[in-house]
């Protein structure tokens, strides 16, 4: 589904990613872990098409397409979804209106006809249950004045509405209390199918107790320096990142 080869990316002339290789197949959950500043969020941003980042080399193929050729909205149409680390507050646009526009633009791009108001509301009601989000919240301006937990739940709610093939969760757990974390993880798990894949970017192992990864990758200084199964995450939780740094220094 996704194949990243030797990806190098920089921002404002500073190189952050220094040759990433990663392959994700349908049905898989990959966790990207790493210390602060290792390039985790950069990777997520490059996948979603954030324009501030310059791709200096390497390729990303997604469903046999050159992902780097696509505008952010085209990536969304093709089924990529980024749950933001810091969801943006947008005054004056209600979540409902925004989502209706988004859902219908995505549907149009996929050759489906627009949802009418009734089916849209029905769809919304179903998906709201998934993340236990309140209707009142959705009629308010998008993320404006939302708590951290509400914003993250809203991200997963949007994900549920847009039904992505590849979801990238960027630090979705940072700043969440355990209850909110459980709700968010529960939502993600319910959305999981054999056809879609998830990349979980996180600093903390805790999230991986609830969203169990098939693969764990450690990103350090712009490269994936270690890959393993979920036990790697536990090891990291136990020993921190220093042993990896030492291991690398020893090579």
């Amino acid at each position, binding site marked *: 589904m996704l194949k990243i080869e030797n990806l190098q990316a920089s921002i404002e002339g500073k190189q952050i990613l220094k040759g990433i290789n990663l392959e994700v197949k349908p049905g898989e959950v990959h966790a990207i872990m790493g210390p602060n500043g290792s390039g985790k969020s950069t990777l997520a941003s490059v996948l979603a098409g954030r324009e501030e980042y310059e791709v200096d080399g390497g390729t990303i193929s997604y469903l046999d397409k050159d992902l780097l050729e696509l505008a*952010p909205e085209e990536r969304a149409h093709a089924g990529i979804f980024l749950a933001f680390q810091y969801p943006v507050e*947008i*005054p004056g646009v209600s979540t409902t209106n*925004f989502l209706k*526009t988004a859902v219908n633009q995505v549907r149009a791009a996929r050759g489906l006809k627009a949802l009418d108001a009734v089916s849209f509301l029905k769809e919304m009601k179903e998906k709201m249950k998934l993340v236990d989000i309140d209707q009142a919240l959705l009629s308010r301006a998008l993320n404006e004045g939302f708590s951290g937990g509400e914003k993250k739940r809203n991200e997963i709610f949007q994900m549920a509405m847009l039904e992505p093939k590849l979801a990238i969760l960027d630090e979705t757990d940072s700043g969440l209390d355990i209850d909110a974390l459980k709700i968010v993880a529960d939502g993600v798990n319910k959305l999981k199918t054999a056809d879609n894949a998830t990349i979980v970017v996180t600093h903390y192992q805790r999230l991986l107790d609830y969203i169990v990864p098939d693969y764990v990758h450690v990103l350090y200084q712009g490269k994936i320096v270690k890959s393993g199964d979920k036990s790697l995450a536990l090891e990291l939780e136990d020993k921190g990142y220093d042993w990896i740094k030492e291991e690398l220094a020893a090579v």
Partner: protein
Amino acid sequence: MSEVINIEESIISRFNSWIDQHYPSDSALKSLKKSAIDKFEELGLPSRKSEAYKYTPITKILEKNFDFQTSLSSPEWTKSECESNFYTETDANHLVFINGEFIEDYSKIVSASSDLTIRLLDDHAFTEIPELKENLGKVNGTSIDPFANLSLAFFNQGLYIKASRNSDNKNTYIYQFIDGTNFSPISFPRIFIKGDSGSRTRVYEKTYIKGEEKSLNISIVESVVDANAEVRFTKLQQYLTSTYSIEGIYAQQSKDSRFYTNTFSFKGAVIRNNVYINIDAENCEGHMNGLYQISGKTHVDNNTSVDHLKPHSYSNELYKGILDENAKGVFNGKIYVRPDAQKTNAFQSNNNILLSDTATINTKPQLEIWADDVQCSHGCTTGQLDKEAIFYLRSRGIEKTRAKALLLNAFANEALVELQNDLVKEEVEGIILNKLG
């Protein structure tokens, strides 16, 4: 060789010949008009150093574009032509001005005269209605503004609207029809609105201009709002690139009253709006909202002030600007809270988005507070569209142009909160969207 005369002299000489043609020597209005031109002569047009017109060199603009000596021929707007432009609300008053003069015959009045008095503001009205004599040309500082004095001197066939005690009135639409086909018209529409105690009045003004010639519109609305009454005045300024307009709204509020203005500016050559509210009583609410969404070379200058003289009143002002291409915006908002006006709540905000490198905005909030137990805030922001917000919307599958339009539309729509009329709201929303492309 003819002597070069300055614009003030030209205006005054024009007045001197005009007044005798239009008003007999025993006219009561004539003496008021003569004193207005004297006052104008004394004040003069704003000089280059005028702080109030710092970013809008109005005198130079007038000198360059208008000749006050030109004699005007008759405008051509037929009754049916006017009617075809009325809003579709039938159970409402539709009042027609042509080149600044109220044309009763073209107007459609449905309100019972026991609720709403709508009549020509002429010599008869001025003689018969004591409050006109008492207030015309005097409401909240109109007498110290050169353009308000010009308006008072030159207006002909003005409009007087009075809401009777406790009347809840039907919507009133005022249409300014301007004909600049064969000559360059200078119009002086004058409107006086009185809300008697406990009444409610809602007025919406819109302008239609035809012809290629430059037009100048000097418009003054005076409003006296009695105890517990409410007056709302909304203006839609969708002019031509040959339109120059200087417009004033002057309100005087009594206790427990509410006054609202909405000013939506979309197009024109130069538009200057003066909105001044005087709250000389307790428990009043004054609202001033505005949107200027402009492009090309349109220049819009909003000069506003609210003066709190008594305690326990509230004022709120929100102006939003979206400026593209070479558009120029100016905002000046004054809030005065006088020593007696304790427990005043006064809020002001002006937010701007510049869509091009060549659009400009000069914004200046001014608070002068003498009372010590008040809540006041003001703020102005100027920026571009939030890139992160655009990316957020795009990452959800919304195309870039649509994402921008969505954000700008949301930004602009905040200025519509106090617009209660669905027809006008729909129209304004339509213009906003249309301008966003």
